[in-house]
């Protein structure tokens, strides 16, 4: 299967051979191209040999950026299936996430969910998108390391910037309005700010490639297939039984799913990496991870007074006031773009208006009040 896939990518990319992955398990190359995970081939960002694309049922919001997620596991190795957390990846695994925006013919970047023009085969069509950054998570013998690469102006390669970066961007929204903001690339410590879901061990881990996020169909070059089944068939995943038996988060935009499951899925991926019982935000006692978990009174946010929210209260008294989203701190902090008040603290400079609308609807559908 891997061979077949490789051939297909080759045919699509046609002009040059696909990049060969070079796992750097000691040093951090200055240039992304040195890894061969993704590389520019003519008008395409092509995937390396045996590099598999994936996406998530419900993703993290990062200033409306589109993301190309990729996984590479060294030949002969595989990830162990796990239900609750990210798959247990072997040493040598490389996970990459390329942040980009679709653009129109004039080069204007677009704020849109439409991904239909993004792709060339399993890679990206560089005539239709602008690359911003590619983040790598590399599983070395000493643990996972996070490396942010920023794409150059010419869109030929990306350069390692361990201290992150900030760039002025302008997006055109669906209604034609222009949106100016500063896109912030995290430094490597800040990568750990999200990717160390246990704030005590501080071990960096992947977040997205967990069963509940991956359990969905994906359109591969060879056709549509469930991602977990695909990985299992490629030999990338062992210990996996069936997609039906595996947990699955809702797609937050799928209105056929229940409001509760959509909201919980959204909070899980956007908040749960810190807001969990051992996370950096356990200082707040507010836990928002894993939709299948139920937490006791005082930890769900329902009528919970803040601990150290500062300006983040927005003048409101409780995280979630049932039936009253407009009085709920949770919604206020999601809608804020003030660094002192906004949640998540990192990863966005703009508000996710659709996400705010979803959580607003979810809270407004609750009954009760707090008094």
């Amino acid at each position, binding site marked *: 299967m891997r061979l077949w896939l490789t051939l297909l990518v080759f045919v699509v990319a046609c002009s040059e051979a696909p990049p060969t992955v070079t796992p750097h398990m000691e040093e951090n190359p200055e240039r992304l191209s040195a890894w061969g995970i993704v590389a520019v081939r003519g008008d395409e960002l092509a995937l390396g040999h045996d590099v598999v694309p994936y996406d998530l049922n419900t993703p993290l919001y990062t200033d409306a950026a589109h993301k190309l997620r990729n996984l590479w596991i060294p030949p002969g190795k595989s990830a162990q299936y796990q239900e609750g957390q990210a798959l247990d990846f072997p040493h040598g695994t490389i996970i990459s996430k390329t942040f980009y925006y679709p653009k129109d013919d*004039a080069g204007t970047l677009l704020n849109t969910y439409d991904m239909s023009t993004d792709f060339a085969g399993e890679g990206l069509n560089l005539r239709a998108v602008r690359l911003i950054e590619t983040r790598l998570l590399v599983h070395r013998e000493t643990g996972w390391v996070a490396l942010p690469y920023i794409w150059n102006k010419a869109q030929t390669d990306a350069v390692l910037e361990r201290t*992150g970066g900030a*760039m002025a961007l302008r997006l055109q929204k669906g209604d034609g309005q222009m949106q100016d903001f500063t896109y912030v690339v995290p430094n490597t410590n800040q990568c750990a700010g999200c990717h160390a879901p246990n704030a005590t061990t501080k071990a960096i881990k992947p977040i997205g490639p967990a069963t509940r996020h991956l359990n969905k169909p994906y359109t591969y070059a060879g056709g549509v297939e469930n991602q977990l089944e695909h990985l299992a068939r490629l030999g990338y995943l062992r210990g996996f039984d069936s997609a039906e038996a595996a947990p699955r988060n809702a797609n937050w935009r799928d209105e056929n799913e229940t409001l509760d499951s959509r909201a919980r899925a959204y909070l899980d991926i956007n908040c749960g990496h810190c807001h969990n019982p051992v996370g950096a935000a356990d200082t707040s006692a507010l836990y928002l991870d894993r939709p299948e978990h139920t937490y006791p009174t005082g930890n769900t946010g329902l009528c919970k007074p803040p601990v150290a929210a*500062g300006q983040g209260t927005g003048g409101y008294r409780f995280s979630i006031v049932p039936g009253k989203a407009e009085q709920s701190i949770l919604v206020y902090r999601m809608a804020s773009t003030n660094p002192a008040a906004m949640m998540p603290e990192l990863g966005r400079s703009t508000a996710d208006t659709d996400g705010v609308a979803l959580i607003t609807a979810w809270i407004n559908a609750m009954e009760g009040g707090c008094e």
Partner: protein
Amino acid sequence: MNIVRLSIGFAALALIAAGCGEQSAKAPVSSESAAFQKKLQTQLLDAKPGDVITIPEGTFTFDRSLSLTVDGVTIRGAGHDKTILSFKGQIAGAEGLLVTASDFTIENLAIEDTKGDALKINEGKNIVIRAVRTEWTNGPDVNNGAYGIYPVQTQNVLIEDSIAIGASDAGIYVGQSKNIIMRRNRVEQNVAGLEVENSINADVYDNIATNNTGGILVFNLPNLEQRGYQTRVHDNQVFANNLKNFAHKGAIVASVPAGTGIIISANDEVEIFNNVIKDNKTSNIVISSYFSIGSMNKKGIKGSFDPYPEGIFIHDNIFEGGGNAPAPLELKALKLAMFGLKGRLPDILWDGYINEKLPADTKRLCVQNGAAQVINADGPGGYKKPNMKQAAYACTLPALPEVKL
């Protein structure tokens, strides 16, 4: 904040005009500052245990948070009035410097005008913060960051000779920690000067707390894993903390009345002695239950939470003035009714909520402080039947042990 936004917008527009939609890595700080920011953050990333990172004299501006995750690092400036890290143009990050590491020392520098907290230390052991100044240079403002110096979930914490000015929540705030010494600090123009929250074994002494809304706070909040107890507050000067409360509504400290010297809320085993406490217009000392915070409810607060303060021992303090102009309306009315227009509330104000389930001889509040008196303000009865019976407080409690790090 609006000004900052506007300037970011301009920067964005200028860049777009110049580059016809191309982007470049630009932020609203000068290129020199950007270079220094990158250099310092790189030093923090590359630090090894035992490293001392020195920052020279000068003012350095940053547009994003700094962070350190390596254990055993010292950050040292040339003096809190000489080495200034300014975050006035900050565009991202909830704090100025975020440290998630142990065996950390920071000394002799200032962190100014951060959007959120100035210095946050989240989880870590053996933390020393010495001669650090955190300040919002525009003075008290609801839009100032919440906390100046903010270790949370830490153990063995020494905060000394430091200064915190202008925090919209607490100037120096130690939360959910164990074994803490806070000494010789000066806190002013904050909502809360010094605050100990859900912490065990804290020693707060030789500090000066003045011109805050509340000078020194010892609080317990619900739902957290760690309940706080055993705090000594002694040999501090706590005077004229009469600043109008400028916290965001909903923040716990928004409930602290302007004119509060020392306030204990829902915490246990607190010994307050040898302090000079004067001219705090609501009350020199307030002993409060969580009910008076105003957020009590059954749906969002764990049943295991103890909202009542117990084991509070007040002795040998020097009181002077204060209580003459309480901020809350109900206390104003109470003062007028009981002590007249020119009178003053007694030095110790207790909200009067008690846990009825405890034995009758439970020592809730003991006072051995000469002529100083306690008023039970009758919070449960809506402040209608306050009383001045002193007999209940004529008890003593064992001295708490000194905290040793």
